[in-house]
């Protein structure tokens, strides 16, 4: 089934006309309503009249996560907050998260694109969707929630965590669709075995998994262990949240809802646009968003685009499963973490040196972050209690900022490798390729 045949199965020329029209409207709105965009465009000698169709997109300046942070919290909103009815925020940044605001129409758009995502994944109104994404400032839970309600499915808002309860509900309510991160899906699968739950009591048929990178191997494992079709969904709060793109049942690339979010692929170094099929950084322009419209937002995700019509009948451009990132952002248990954030927290703790190492591993299908910290030689280190409380202090600071559990390990002076160039700060042992 296709949720919105008109928009999901458009001819290419019709799509280009629609995108061009909405792009012009968007540029008018941001130029006149967002000082940041006006100044940036003026600096490049651009006015709203210079943008006539999607081909002109490449003339426009990029927007980055730093721009959002610099204008924290509401600086890039294109409408007064009286028009905003919901805020969400992304996780794990140096004290300042990126805040996104939705108007009533934005929330309607969001429900629409998530409804498409779910339909695309093969979910129908008779399904029971168990949403095990976190509810709250994170867009995962509520995004899936309203999309699920829109298609008329039975939405079970369990939110994240509490595995025992998840599995009980899964059996008692006959859950047919599971929405969570792929690593949590695997964790649930293993818990079913460990708790000796009768497989016949699990009625799952579809999984919509996203918010972190995962491989084909992981997909095979999840499908085998949970007995579901595992569908990759893609989204980021800056653009709207889940609903930006989704695989269909043919699992051959993610259909981008390009009538709302125009994708481009650029070379992350030269910033030049790349052509179809070439791998580079994914960039979005949100042509219909009102609260926080973004022009050429650099996602830092690496992928490529495919404009061929899909077997499912959709003509929406497909993006390949993301293969990596063009920056050093880590996604750990669905939370976005930059090593620089951890560094700035450690620098505030005087008893440690600025040398640290992050080790990320996937143990029992759960991402684990270990932070090795060097004890400063000058730090008085004669008592165990003192070191234990130092460790606790570091852990508390990290956990309260990052929002995930961290294992801190104190190591000897000079045991973390010094390098003359860019220091190696991260060892990612998760096998994601």
């Amino acid at each position, binding site marked *: 089934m296709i949720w919105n045949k008109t928009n999901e199965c458009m001819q290419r020329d019709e799509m280009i006309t629609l995108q061009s029209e909405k792009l012009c409207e968007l540029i008018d709105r941001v130029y006149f309503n967002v000082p940041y965009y006006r100044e940036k465009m003026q600096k490049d000698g651009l006015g709203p009249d210079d943008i006539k169709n999607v081909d002109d997109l490449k003339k426009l300046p990029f927007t980055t996560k730093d721009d959002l942070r610099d204008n924290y919290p509401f600086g890039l909103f294109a409408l007064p907050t009286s028009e905003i009815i919901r805020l969400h925020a992304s996780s794990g940044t140096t004290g300042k998260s990126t805040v996104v605001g939705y108007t009533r129409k934005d929330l309607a758009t969001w429900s629409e694109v998530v409804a498409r995502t779910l339909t695309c994944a093969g979910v129908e109104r008779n399904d029971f969707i168990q949403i095990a994404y976190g509810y709250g400032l994170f867009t995962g839970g509520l995004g899936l929630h309203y999309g699920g309600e829109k298609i008329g499915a039975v939405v079970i808002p369990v939110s994240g965590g509490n595995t025992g309860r998840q599995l009980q509900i899964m059996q008692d309510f006959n859950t047919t669709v599971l929405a969570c991160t792929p690593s949590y899906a695997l964790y649930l699968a293993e818990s079913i075995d460990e708790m000796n739950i009768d497989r016949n009591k699990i009625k799952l048929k579809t999984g919509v998994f996203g918010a972190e990178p995962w491989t084909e191997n992981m997909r095979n494992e999840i499908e085998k262990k949970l007995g579901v079709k595992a569908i990759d969904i893609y989204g980021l709060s800056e653009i709207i949240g889940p609903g930006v793109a989704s695989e269909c049942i043919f699992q051959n690339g993610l259909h981008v809802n390009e009538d709302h979010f125009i994708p481009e692929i650029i070379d992350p170094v030269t910033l030049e646009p790349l052509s179809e099929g070439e791998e580079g950084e994914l960039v979005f322009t949100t042509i219909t968003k009102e609260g926080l419209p973004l022009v050429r937002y650099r996602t830092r995700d690496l992928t490529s685009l495919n404009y061929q019509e899909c077997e499912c009948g959709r003509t929406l451009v497909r993006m390949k499963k993301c293969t990596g990132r063009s920056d050093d952002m880590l996604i750990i248990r669905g939370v976005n973490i930059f090593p620089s954030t951890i560094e700035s927290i450690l620098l505030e703790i005087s008893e440690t040196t600025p040398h640290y190492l992050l080790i990320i591993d996937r143990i029992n299908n759960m991402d684990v972050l270990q932070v090795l910290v060097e004890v400063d*030689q000058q730090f008085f280190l*004669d008592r165990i209690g003192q*070191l234990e409380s130092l460790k606790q202090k570091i852990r508390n600071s990290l956990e309260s900022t990052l929002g995930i559990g961290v294992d801190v390990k*104190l*190591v000897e002076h000079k045991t973390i490798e010094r390098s003359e160039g860019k220091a190696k700060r991260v060892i990612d042992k998760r096998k994601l390729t």
Partner: protein
Amino acid sequence: MLIKQLSVFLENKSGRLSEALSALGDENINIKALTIADTQEFGIVRMIVSDPEKGFSILRAKGFSVNLVDVISIATSSECGSFAVALKVLSDENISIEYIYAFSVADKAAIVLRTEDTDKALKAIQRNNMELLGGNEMSDL
């Protein structure tokens, strides 16, 4: 009167203690007493050595996380019960001990300890006419 103790932070990795001790031995630093406080991940080695300042420089130069710490050392006889008598003096004055270790040579014994209030401990020891050891006397043991 206080003596200098070398305190070294070591990760629980095989060979680390041996490396630290070899570094001292190579420079003719004699270890009089040694104790280790350990946790799952790391340990603190505490040592009384013949030349603490030199030992400190050697270990620091080798990249060890090391510090010189002032500790109290009490001389007792190595008779049964003498350790307990010494500790009673401190407990009667409500002085908490952070860590303690002891060793004996022939008929003499030495107790090395660190308390949360060094001055108070020193006064209590002197008031009870117990003998404090200095660095040199310790080396002579």
